[in-house]
């Protein structure tokens, strides 16, 4: 049986970043993915903020950082626009399939072993480690690792099999659907466009993430409890936009987005959870690529120490939780409060707010500044019942 210090399940941004950083630290690491190709199918809008590059210590490469974004435009239900141009809204739209392959190459060149079309069927704790049963092109083989990283995405089977309940509650999960489109016309290809309104996207928004002058990811995220499907909502919205409906669809993808309900403890004996599997997603905009990679880097540090000490218990791994919450988790919790506050507003409230809110307020809300949440709420003083409901979430 092949033995490794660490086995990673899932070769997405989180799993591959963990593989890369662990291999760099000299830890023996293997990474399995059940898909036959890394980077597909894409399940996201492919936006990555510029600040993430510095935080992660990676340089944008023109091979995958293909379209530069300088800002964001938010549209109210009646079409009023708020433009935001700030450091935080600068970034790129990725070719994610190329980006993930780039990460895989980095990991493999650093010494990680990667297997695709390898489905991890079973995980069983044994001899202070974990025995993995892996279906490799139809043959079942056993592997042994001291620590497993569950980076298996929103479907997250591995953590649940090893005793951490990562099941998403419907109220905390958004339903997403997206077309990559070409031959479309839209204004402002240097910014992302977010369209709000309960009629077009209940408890979420429609988006245009440009990938060129006439190409973009056109998608939607709606609340998981909504009866009608995300696809139906997106089709209706596109049909209402002349510039979009004339275009062609060159890629269809869907995905669930774990926007709330963070795991307090993402570790157990021999187990660390990262990325969508750990619900490491921004609750307001739904982005998770950079968060998954940052978590993976933190996890790699903690795991390398544990391997060095030959300690693989919950106690040896739980330091990852605190480091994560200090780095990102606590601010995401505040952003979740802002999300809950915003969810109380109907289209009419939203319209009256758009007239009063500044683009700075928007950025502060997106950062989870609760004081701004209170200020914004106070602007809705004409509806005292609503104000009370909204403030309740900011405590």
């Amino acid at each position: 049986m092949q033995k490794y210090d660490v086995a990673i399940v899932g070769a997405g941004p989180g799993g591959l970043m963990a593989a890369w950083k662990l291999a760099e630290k000299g830890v023996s690491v293997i990474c399995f993915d059940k898909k036959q190709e890394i980077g597909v199918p894409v399940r996201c809008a492919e936006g990555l903020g510029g600040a993430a590059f510095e935080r992660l210590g990676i340089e944008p490469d023109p091979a995958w950082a293909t379209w530069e974004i300088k800002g964001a435009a938010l549209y109210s239900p009646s079409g009023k626009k708020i433009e935001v141009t700030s450091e935080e809204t600068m970034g790129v739209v990725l070719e994610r399939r190329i980006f993930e392959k780039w990460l895989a190459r980095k990991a493999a060149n650093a010494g990680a072993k990667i297997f695709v079309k390898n489905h991890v069927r079973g995980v069983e704790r044994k001899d202070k480690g974990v025995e993995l049963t892996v279906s490799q092109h139809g043959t079942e083989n056993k592997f042994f690792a001291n620590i497993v990283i569950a980076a298996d995405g929103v479907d997250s089977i591995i953590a649940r099999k090893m005793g951490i309940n990562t099941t998403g509650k419907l109220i905390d999960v958004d339903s997403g659907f997206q077309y990559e489109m070409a031959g479309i016309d839209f204004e402002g290809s240097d910014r992302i466009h977010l369209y709000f309104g309960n009629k077009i996207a209940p408890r979420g928004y429609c988006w245009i993430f440009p990938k060129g002058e006439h190409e973009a990811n056109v998608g939607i995220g709606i609340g998981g409890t909504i009866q009608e499907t995300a696809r139906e909502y997106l089709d209706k919205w596109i049909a209402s936009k002349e510039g979009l409906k004339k275009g062609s669809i060159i890629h269809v993808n869907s995905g669930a987005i774990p926007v709330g309900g963070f795991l307090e403890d993402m570790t157990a004996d021999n187990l660390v959870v990262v990325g969508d599997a750990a619900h490491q997603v921004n609750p307001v905009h739904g982005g998770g690529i950079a968060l998954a990679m940052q978590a993976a880097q933190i996890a790699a540090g903690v795991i390398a120490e544990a391997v060095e000490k030959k300690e693989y218990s919950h106690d040896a791994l739980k330091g990852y939780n605190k480091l994560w919450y200090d780095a990102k988790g606590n601010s995401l919790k505040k952003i979740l409060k802002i999300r809950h506050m915003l969810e109380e507003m109907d289209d009419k409230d939203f319209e009256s707010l758009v007239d009063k809110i500044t683009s700075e307020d928007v950025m502060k809300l997106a950062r989870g500044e609760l004081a701004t949440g209170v200020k914004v709420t106070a602007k809705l003083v004409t509806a005292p019942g609503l104000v009370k409901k909204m403030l309740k979430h900011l405590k």
Partner: protein
Amino acid sequence: MVLFVSDFMGVKCDTELCCYCGGCVGVCPKLALELEETKIAIDNEKCINCRACVLICPVGAMEMLE
């Protein structure tokens, strides 16, 4: 979570609609679903009829069995 008491138990997946995103798998409280590369494996013995997978599915591929 919506629970319906009824005679039928279980779900099915319309592969013509499914985009294999695994959203249904993530919200299934009973681990009755698993994403294979090009299908959703369903163990209806475990299904408790909660409809979470039906509601979350972005493309309407999951249906209750009748």
